[in-house]
């Protein structure tokens, strides 16, 4: 059906009933520690990139968990891979592996959808 006149803006609600969590499942398999994140924010507060710009690693994690990939690609490319986040994470999340793998998956997903 064609859009007619105006469209209804996407709701703010995360709709878990019809979101596609397949990427999340792949990541859970590839970077097992990814699911351990409790969002304490230590990574974001130590982040070298976050000193310059709005960038938060645990937020990326949360966005990914919630299948919100739209802005994630741009966001993830801000990372300099310096590794401070991995060293401060109390939950032992392999943050750098997680970021690289998220980028891979999003890229692949994009190619598949095209």
């Amino acid at each position: 059906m064609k859009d007619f006149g105006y469209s209804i803006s996407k709701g703010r609600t995360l709709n878990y009933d019809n979101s596609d969590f397949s990427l999340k499942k792949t990541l859970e398999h590839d970077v097992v520690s990814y699911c351990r994140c409790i969002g304490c924010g230590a990574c974001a507060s130590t982040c070298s990139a976050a000193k310059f710009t709005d960038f938060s690693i645990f937020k990326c994690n949360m966005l990914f968990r919630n299948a919100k990939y739209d802005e994630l690609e741009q966001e993830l490319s801000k990372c300099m891979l310096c590794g401070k986040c991995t060293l401060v994470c109390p939950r032992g999340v392999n943050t750098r592996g997680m970021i690289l793998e998220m980028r891979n998956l999003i890229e692949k997903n994009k190619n598949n959808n095209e």
Partner: protein
Amino acid sequence: MNHFDVIIIGGGPAGMQAAIRLGNFNYKTLIIEKEKSIGGKLTQWDKLFPDFYSAEELLQNLTRQLNENVSILTEQEVKDIENTSENEWTVKTADGQYSSKALLIASGYDFFNAKRKEEFGYGIYPNVITSVELEAMIKNGKITTLDGRIPQKIAYLQCVGSRDEKVGNHYCSINCCICAVKQSIEVKELLPDVEQYCFYMDLRMAGQHYEELYRTSQEKYHVQFIRGRISEAASTFDNRIQIKAENTLLSTPLKLTVDLFVLMVGMEASETTRFISQKFNISNEYGFLQSKQRYCSDNETEIKGLFLAGTCKRPMTIPKSLKDGDAAANAIFDYLKNR
């Protein structure tokens, strides 16, 4: 006379409570304590959460209840323990050798060495202190920075050395969340003008009157609770501490300069606990002692005549340690009776 019915290693709350009970059961009991006096970590505390009961009063109370069946050895570190024969235990200290029919381990915990988390600057910057040092200040009724100033701003950081996989301590130490709440109230009463911030990952107010105390600290004492873990601390030119964290609820980085930065250090197996757990091969993954079964025989071990009480098993609050001392005494009573 060096022979006893029961030897208790460690004279903290759990050990004392067990000794009271065992003394009442008419068992000859010996407490071996490595510090100058019994009481364990209780001696370092001023008031207890959640009701501000005086630690000193509790200690006196416990000491009063110890009867003539209980002997106490202080400043004696355990050098070796042997299960010499069936039902016979020998404990060697620097000065002597003692034997008993049953052995109760109540060797407790140690505080996490905050120097292992270098990013918080403990041991590097003078105004970074641990919760233990703050408690000592509270006990003295005088809270100052190292250079003698009255602090205007204090920050507390939860989970230093607990819930931290990097240092190998995956567990929660239970006491620290509520302890910070308690301490912040006490500090505010001593210093009415102080501003206080408490940084947490999760706040675990697990018990009746705990949540209420948390609520009071917010409502009456205006402690600000910020969900976010501090990642870096640095000293300013005037010896204040600048901390960097993330306010995760706003998803915004945060910078704050404080006069005192308090690390709520977690609980680890004490040196004696580690020694015993290795010696008898009953260590859990963190060096704490492993009881036979957590539900029904939590004071027994796989080794006959060897009993456990208190925080040598896992982090516990003081009331829980006391109850565990009771339970251990009962278990020993059963054991000695049926022998």
